[in-house]
């Protein structure tokens, strides 16, 4: 017999693993803003990849419900406020598993906002959704193993990879290789990636200093033309059609923060994550967190955390306990990875006074120099006041000047006024068309 209900937010690997683990024991609802399950990594345009289906199918057969295309815009101790394309509703919850993943981290350099410059994950998503990249020259730059995965994928779709630049030194990466010995899966993955990328230049301790724009006479005027690269004292220009830039990921912590979950102790240079105990339980009772939200760790760790969180939320602690060791091993690897990907302080010097930091409100670095805190920059300089509410630029200013940003309030993401009018427990359901589960 099933006891209790578990609502899972986010249908990436962590959320799917949680759903599969919890479904035999509890009434499960899995929701995601995308139309189908899969998350960032298993995104397949409108469909579902095999990997996602392998986790979702058994969950579905055990009775789990799918709620796609809808996002959580606010939440309290009793209910989630959901919005989809046409309506909104309050969805009561008993036990929550938060697996909302992470977003890409962007670091500014002159030209980082040019068309043609994208996050490595963003460009992959565009291609998965139908962008034809065949024959296009792509430069892949930044830090971390995601660069390799992105480059391999783009190459498999017909892109010409002009090169991969990794800001970390060879020595830092050697540390990473050592850490990966703990994980045969990682080792296999890494060698697989390098095989797929044979012949592609891979440069360590190298980065993009600036992206250059096509001249006005060119047919692609205004678009990215080339990047200026630097490695030690060597500087050169590399023409390309796209720059896939990636400096790792930042956990999506807003919803957890709104629900009162405490942050994990700050780690130098790393974006904030949510604190959890051995069983993935956050500081609030009945809320478990799994995947990137607890700290960036990749696919295997997300799957294990999801499974543990799902079992624990469904009251199956004894079963969950079996996976703790494997998860801890993966966590160990994740920590080593974070160390290896530590950003070179030199990168802070790349943006110039004209380089835009807040894209929503078009605020350049030079103007931010007048201010001493995030709040001052916001109130007097409009930094972070736009649609993304500082999701991108607060991470940048945190990295540049250690400005702290932590004020979460509803809505956690822009939402229709008609939706927000339903926020109260006793809201009249007058104006908004409710959607049916």
């Amino acid at each position, binding site marked *: 017999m099933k006891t209790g209900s578990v609502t899972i937010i986010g249908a990436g690997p962590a959320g799917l693993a949680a759903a599969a683990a919890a479904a035999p024991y509890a009434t499960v609802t899995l929701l995601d803003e995308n139309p189908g399950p899969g998350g960032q990594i298993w995104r397949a345009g409108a469909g579902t990849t095999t990997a996602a289906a392998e986790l979702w199918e058994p969950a579905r057969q055990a009775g789990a419900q799918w709620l796609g295309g809808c996002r959580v815009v606010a939440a309290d101790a009793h209910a989630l406020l959901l919005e989809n394309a046409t309506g909104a509703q309050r969805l009561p919850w008993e036990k929550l598993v938060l697996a909302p993943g992470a977003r890409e981290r962007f670091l500014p350099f002159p030209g980082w906002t040019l068309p043609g410059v994208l996050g490595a994950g963003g460009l992959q998503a565009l291609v998965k959704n139908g962008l034809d990249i065949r024959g296009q020259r792509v430069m892949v730059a930044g830090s971390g193993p995601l660069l390799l995965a992105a480059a391999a994928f783009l190459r498999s779709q017909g892109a010409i990879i002009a090169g991969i630049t990794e800001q970390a030194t060879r020595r830092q990466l050697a540390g990473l290789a050592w850490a990966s010995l703990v994980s045969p899966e990682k080792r296999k993955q890494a060698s697989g990636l390098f095989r797929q990328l044979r012949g592609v230049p891979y440069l360590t301790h190298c980065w993009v200093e600036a992206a250059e724009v096509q001249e006005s006479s060119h047919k692609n005027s205004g678009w990215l033309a080339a990047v200026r690269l630097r490695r030690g004292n060597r500087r050169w220009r590399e023409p390309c059609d796209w720059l896939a830039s990636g400096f790792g990921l930042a956990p999506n912590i807003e919803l957890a923060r709104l629900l009162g979950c405490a942050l994990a102790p700050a780690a130098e240079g790393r974006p904030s994550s949510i604190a959890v105990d051995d069983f993935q339980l956050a500081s609030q009772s009945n809320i478990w967190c799994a995947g990137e939200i607890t700290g960036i760790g990749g696919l295997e760790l997300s799957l294990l955390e999801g499974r543990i969180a799902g079992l624990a939320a469904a009251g199956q602690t004894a079963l969950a306990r079996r996976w703790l060791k494997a998860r801890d091993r993966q966590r160990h690897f994740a920590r080593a990875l974070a160390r290896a990907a530590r950003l070179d302080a030199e990168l802070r010097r790349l943006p110039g006074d004209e380089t835009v930091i807040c894209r929503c409100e078009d605020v350049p670095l030079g103007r931010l120099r007048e201010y001493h805190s995030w709040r001052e920059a916001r*109130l007097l300089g409009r930094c972070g006041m736009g*649609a993304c*509410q500082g999701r991108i630029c607060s991470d940048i200013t945190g990295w540049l000047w250690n400005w702290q940003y932590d004020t979460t*309030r509803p*809505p956690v993401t822009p939402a229709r*006024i008609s939706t*927000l009018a339903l926020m*109260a427990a006793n809201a009249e359901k007058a104006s908004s068309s409710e959607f049916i589960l």
Partner: protein
Amino acid sequence: MASSNRTFDLAVIGCGIVGAACARAGTRAGLRTIIVEGSLAGGGATAAGMGHIVVMDGSEAQLALTLYSRRLWQQLIPELPEAAEYRSCGTLWIAEHEAELELARRKQAKLAGQGVACEILDARQLMEAEPCLRPGLAGALRVPDDGVLYPPIAAQWLWQQAQNAGAVMRSGAIVTRIQEQAIHVAGGDRIQAGAIIVAAGSQGAELIPEIPLRPRKGHLLITDRYPGFLRHQVVELGYLQRAHAGTESSVSFNLQPRATGQVLIGSSRQYSHDRAVEPDVLSRMLARAQSYVPRLGDLRGLRAWTGFRAATPDDLPCIGPLPNRPHIFAALGHEGLGITTSLGTAELLLAQMLGAEAPIPAGPFQPARFFIETSPAGHA
């Protein structure tokens, strides 16, 4: 610290819009001025308010102060920086039904009697003036010379004016105690000044306990950019009645067009010290706004926040010397009108300080009205 050894003519405590205006007025009168701010200048109620520059007629004194202040703002407009986002959008006071339209006519007569340009719009004219409103409203009173601005930048500009004229700014200095001609700053520092203006917003009562200030919390929510959606600041005519009904929490319909094309949605009132955005109050406020502007429902809300208005029992600010300590002046208790009345407050206060003729009657604003309970012997 250099400033503590110097003697000032005037020390202003608090650098919200009211303190900034007072410091500017002080330097314009030739006073050596210091402005002492405990936290972020402009970061108190001034960072939370709507920035509606509005003539209000809740009482004769309120009408005099808001009208005088609006005139002062209008003189400053050419000098304000673009980032102060001043727009002369006018106010529409919405009459929901015929009975309210009658109220609007009376308000019109009263304002016109004071020389305020204003006109009654019938139902059709209202729809033309503001097409986003729901049909079926009785009409409105239009006050074309009201405007909106962005308060934190307006305040910053005011204190920069004071600084350019020689005022000294001490930031990060919390005043713990005031004496007749000196103030004490946390950490032991003491600043001497011939006169002291307490412009500490809703925290003012900590320095002058006799003034009965209560924080009246308000919610606001801002949308994404929708240029052209809204033209006027639009307020329900019953606003004042609803706002001061004295119930636990009240919401009223108050929409503001920002220069950015955003719509600022207000507002709520309740006595509270808790900063948190309350889902219950927020959703009631939004539902009310939607009932006047149905298409508002499709706009995307970006951010909600709260702020505290410093409320006095009679809804008038305190602008004047303390009865028992004539060198200490209060500029406190501006409730929901301090952005508008900051400039008038500063002039009225300086006139009293310097013994000049008051630009409007100062009587109704005297802090002394709250001191009646203290013994005639004065304070120790």
